[in-house]
C-alpha cells in the first residue's frame, strides 16, 4: 500500500528535516560566538580612531585637489582635532564582560523550545503538498481525459498496486467508452480491496455497458450478490429492476423497484422513474420507456421554472440554471432566448459573471450584437 506508507512516512521525513534545520541554525549561532573570540580586542580598538583617520585623509585629499583652500583645510583640521579630544574624553568602550556560554546556551534552548512549541500549535505536518497538476481528481476532470488516462496507465504499468490510480482510471474509462478496460479496472480494485456492494455494482455497470443492452449473466450475478450482501444498497437494486424489466421478468422487477423505493429518503432524482417502473411492472409491462419518461420530467420542471422566470422574474442564479438546463437538453434556441431574457433583466455585465461565462462556453450569442 504505497499511499498508506506515504501517510506515515511524510510526517517522519518532515520532522527529521525540521530537527536538522533547527540543529544547524543553533550550531551556526553557537559557533559564531566561538569564531570571534580570538581577535576581538584588536578590532574593538581599531574602530575607535578609524573614522578620524579617514576624515583626516579626506581633508588632505580635498586640499591637494584644490577643493579646499589652505584656510578652510586648517579650520576643518581644527574641528577634527576638537572632535578627537572630545571623543577621547568620553570614550569608555563599555564592554562589561564578554558573552559567556551560559546565556548563549540558554538562548539556543529557548529558540528550539519556542520553535517546536509554536509550530506544534500552528502547523499541519501531516498534510502533504497538493500541487494541482499532480492531483488525481483533477487529472480525471481535465478536458484532455484521454491524455490523462494515458499518463495514469503509464504509472499503473509501473505500480500495479496503486489502488488510487485504479480508482481514478475506472470511471475515466467509462467516460471514454472503454467499457472492457473499465471492467478490468474494477476487477483489479476488487482484488486489491476485497468486494463491496458498491464495487460489484460498478463492475456490473461496466459489464452491462459493454454488452450494450444485451445483458450479461456475470453482471446479474454481481448485482444479486451486491443486493444480497448489503440490504441497504440502492444502486444494485435499481440496476436489477431495470434488467429484469428488460428480461420481462416483471415479478422480480417489481420486488426490486419496491425495495429501492422503500430505501429512498424521498427527494431522490430517480424516485419518480422508480415509481413509474413499479406501476409498469405491476401492470405486467405496459411499455413506457424509462429514459424518455425522465427527460419528459426534466422538460416539465424546466417548463415550470421558465414560466415563473418569464412572468415574475427571478435571481440571476435561477436564470443561469434555466439556461444551463436548456443546454443540457440540447435546446440551443430556448437557451439563447432565456439568455437574452436574463440579459434584459440584468443589464449590468457585472451581475452576470457566471452566466456570460456559461453562454460563451456554449457558443450562445452574447448581448450587444
Amino acid at each position: 500500500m504505497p499511499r498508506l506508507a506515504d501517510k506515515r512516512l511524510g510526517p517522519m521525513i518532515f520532522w527529521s528535516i525540521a530537527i536538522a534545520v533547527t540543529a544547524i541554525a543553533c550550531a551556526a549561532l553557537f559557533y559564531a560566538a566561538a569564531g570571534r573570540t580570538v581577535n576581538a580586542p584588536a578590532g574593538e580598538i581599531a574602530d575607535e580612531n578609524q573614522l578620524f583617520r579617514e576624515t583626516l585623509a579626506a581633508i588632505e585629499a580635498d586640499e591637494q585637489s584644490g577643493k579646499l583652500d589652505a584656510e578652510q583645510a586648517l579650520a576643518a583640521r581644527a574641528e577634527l582635532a576638537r572632535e578627537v579630544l572630545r571623543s577621547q574624553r568620553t570614550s569608555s568602550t563599555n564592554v562589561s564582560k564578554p558573552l559567556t556560554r551560559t546565556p548563549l546556551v540558554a538562548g539556543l534552548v529557548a529558540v528550539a523550545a519556542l520553535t517546536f512549541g509554536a509550530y506544534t500549535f500552528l502547523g499541519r505536518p501531516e498534510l502533504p503538498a497538493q500541487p494541482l497538476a499532480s492531483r488525481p481528481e483533477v487529472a480525471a476532470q481535465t478536458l484532455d481525459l484521454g491524455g490523462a488516462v494515458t499518463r495514469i496507465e503509464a504509472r499503473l504499468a509501473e505500480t500495479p498496486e496503486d489502488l488510487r490510480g485504479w480508482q481514478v482510471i475506472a470511471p475515466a474509462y467509462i467516460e471514454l467508452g472503454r467499457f472492457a478496460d473499465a471492467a478490468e479496472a474494477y476487477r483489479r480494485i476488487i482484488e486489491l480491496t476485497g468486494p463491496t456492494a458498491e464495487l460489484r455494482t460498478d463492475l456490473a455497470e461496466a459489464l452491462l455497458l459493454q454488452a450494450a443492452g444485451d445483458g450479461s449473466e456475470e453482471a446479474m450475478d454481481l448485482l444479486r450478490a451486491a443486493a444480497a450482501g448489503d440490504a441497504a444498497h440502492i444502486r444494485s437494486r435499481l440496476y436489477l429492476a431495470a434488467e429484469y424489466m428488460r428480461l420481462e421478468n416483471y415479478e422480480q422487477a417489481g420486488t426490486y423497484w419496491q425495495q429501492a423505493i422503500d430505501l429512498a429518503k424521498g427527494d431522490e432524482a430517480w424516485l419518480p422513474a422508480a415509481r413509474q417502473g413499479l406501476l409498469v411492472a405491476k401492470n405486467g409491462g405496459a411499455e413506457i420507456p424509462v429514459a424518455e419518461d425522465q427527460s419528459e420530467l426534466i422538460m416539465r420542471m424546466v417548463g415550470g421554472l421558465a414560466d415563473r422566470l418569464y412572468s415574475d422574474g427571478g435571481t440571476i442564479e435561477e436564470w443561469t440554471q434555466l439556461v444551463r438546463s436548456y443546454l443540457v437538453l440540447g435546446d440551443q434556441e430556448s437557451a439563447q432566448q432565456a439568455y437574452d431574457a436574463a440579459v434584459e433583466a440584468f443589464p449590468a455585465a457585472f451581475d452576470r459573471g457566471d452566466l456570460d461565462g456559461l453562454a460563451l462556453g456554449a457558443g450562445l450569442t452574447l448581448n450587444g450584437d
Partner: protein
Amino acid sequence: MSIELGHFALVLAFAISVVSAVGGLTLWRRGERLSAVLGQAAVLQFVLVALAFLAVVHAFVVSDFSLALAANHSHSLKPLIFKISGVWGNHEGSMLLWVLILVLFGALVAAFGRSLPSDLSNLVLGTQSLLTAAFSGFTLFTSNPFVRLSPAPLEGGDLNPVLQDIGLAIHPPLLYAGYVGFSICFSFAIAALVSGRIDQAWARWVRPWTMLSWTFLTLGIAMGSYWAYYELGWGGWWFWDPVENASFMPWLAGTALLHSALVMEKRNALKIWTIFLAIITFSLSLLGTFLVRSGILTSVHTFASDPTRGLVILTILALLIGGAFLLFAIRSPALRQGGLFAPISREGALILNNLFLATAVGAVLVGTLYPLLLDALTGTTISVGAPFFNFTFGALMAPLLLVLPFGPLLAWKRADLVAAGQRLMGFAALAIFLAILISALAGNSISLVPIGLLLGFWVSFGAVAEVIERSRLGRIPLAESLRRLAGLSRSIWSTAIGHLGLGLTVLGIVSVSAWETELVTTLNPGESAELAGSNIAFDSFEQSEGANYLADAGRFTVTAPDGGTAELVAERRTYVASGMPTTEAAIQTYGLSQLYLQLGEPLDDTHVVRVWHKPYILLIWLGTLVMAVAGVLSLTDRRIRLGAPQSRQKLSLGATR
C-alpha cells in the same frame, strides 16, 4: 511537505528573532562575541524567512490549493506573473513580504556592519530583531499565510482583478523596501538613545540607509501613482486619499531626515533632531502600512478587515512608537548637542527645509486623521478633500521651493546670502521670463499658474546653478570647465540632480493642473469627436475573451494635430471567477503629454466615452525617476566629505570685495 517546511522556517525565524531581541537589548554591553551571534542570527532570520516566502510562491505557482491563501487569492488559469505577484496581493502574503524585507535589511546591516562598535551593533541588531519578532509574530498568530485546507478545493477564488497588473509586481515591493528601510534608521536611533553614543560615525552610518529607503519609497510612491492613473480609469494621478497620504507622510519626513542626517554627517550638528526625525519617519512608515490594514480605512489597499487584527496591530504600533518616544524623552536631554552655526548658513537653510517639511507632515497628518478621530469620537462624518490639501500643502511648499536653490550655494557654518543671491540672479530672471512668456502664450492671466511655473523653473534652474557655478562655465575656457565638471564630487551632482527632479515634478503638476482638458460624450462606432486638436474616431465595438476575463473592447483611431494616427483599444473587463468589472483605459503618449481614453458604461444604443488630454503629465513621474537616480548616485559616493567651515575673516573679506 514544502509548505509545512516553509511554515516551520518562519516559526524558527520568529523564535530566533525573539531570542535575539531579548539578548541584544539586555546584554548589549557584552561586546564582540554577542555581535557575532546577533549578526549570524540576522542572516539566519533572512535565510529562513526567504525559504518561507519561496514556499508560498511555489504553492501559488503550482496552484496548490491546500494552502488557504492560494485557494482564496489565486486561480489556476492566471498568468504566471500574476500567480507570483498574487502572493502579496492580500493581507497575509503582504505581511510576509514586509517581514522578508525587514529581515533582508537586518541581514544587510549584519553584513556591512562588521566595523561598527560592538555596543552600537548589538543594540541595532537587537532592535531590528524586536521589530522582526513583533511583525513575524503578528503574521504567524493573527494572519498566518500558511493556514491549510483539507480537503483542498479544486479551484481558487482568484485575485482582485484591479490587482492583476504588472503594477502589483513592482509597487508593493518598492514601497515596502522604502518603509522598512527606515526601520534601520529607527534601530540606530534607539541604539544611540540607549547607549548614549551619538557621533559622526553614527550619522555616517545612518545616512546611506536613509538615502536607500528614501530612493525606494520615492520610486514606490511614483509607481503607485502611475498605476492608479492608468488602472483605476479616472485619469487622476493623486487623490489625497488617506492611503496615499499614509505613504506620503513618511516620504516627507524621510526627506527631512535625509537633509538633517546630511548636516549631522558633515557638521556633527542637529543630532537630537535627527534622532527624533528617524523615530518619526519609521513611526509614520508603520502607520502607512498598518493604518491601511487595521480596517480603519477602506480602499483598494484594504484586504481583509478583521477587528481583532486591527486591535492587535494598533497595540503593537502604540507600544513600539510610544516606547521609542518615551525613551527619547528620558534619554535625549543627556545627549550632547552638536556644533554651533550662524542662522544664515548651509545648516540654517537645511533647518528651514526641515521646518517646512515637518509642518507639511503635520498638515497632511491632521487632514488624514482628523476625519477618522471625529468619526470615532462623535460619529460625525466629514470629508477632508483635495481642496484642503492642495491649499495647505501648496502654501507650505511654495516658500520651501522659493528658498531651495539658495541652500546648496551657502557655505557651512556661516554664509553670505547676498553673494548667493547674486549668483542666482541670472537664473531667477530666466525663470520669471519663461513663466510669464508661457502663461501669456497659453492665455493665463495673473493666477496660480504663472506662480507655479515660476517655482518649477526656479527650482530646476537653481539646481543646475550650483553645477554651473562650480564649473565656472563661460568664465574660463570651455575645456577647463568640462574638466572641472567631471571632477565634481558625486554628492554635488546628486544634490543638483535631486533638486532638478523635484523641479521637473513641480512643472508637470502645474502643467497638468492648469491645462488639462476633458471631454465626456456619447459615441457609436463610426462617429468621432475632437479634443485638444486631436480627432478621436470610434471604429468598432467588439467582445473578446482573455485568459480569465471577458472584455467589451472599443477600438479608436486618434489623429493627432500633426497628422500622425494611432490605434487605441479601451476595454471594460469582467473577470469570470470573481464577476468583478475593471476598466482598462487606452493611453497614447505624445512626447511628455498623454491622451487618456476610457470606455464608459454602454447605454441603450450608444457608449459613454471619456477622453482627457494631459499636457506634460509624464514630467511628474520623470521628475521622481530623476530624484531616484540622484539617490542612487549619492549612495555610490562613500568617500568622507567633510563640510569645511567658512572662517569668519574670509567671509567678511568676501563681503567687502
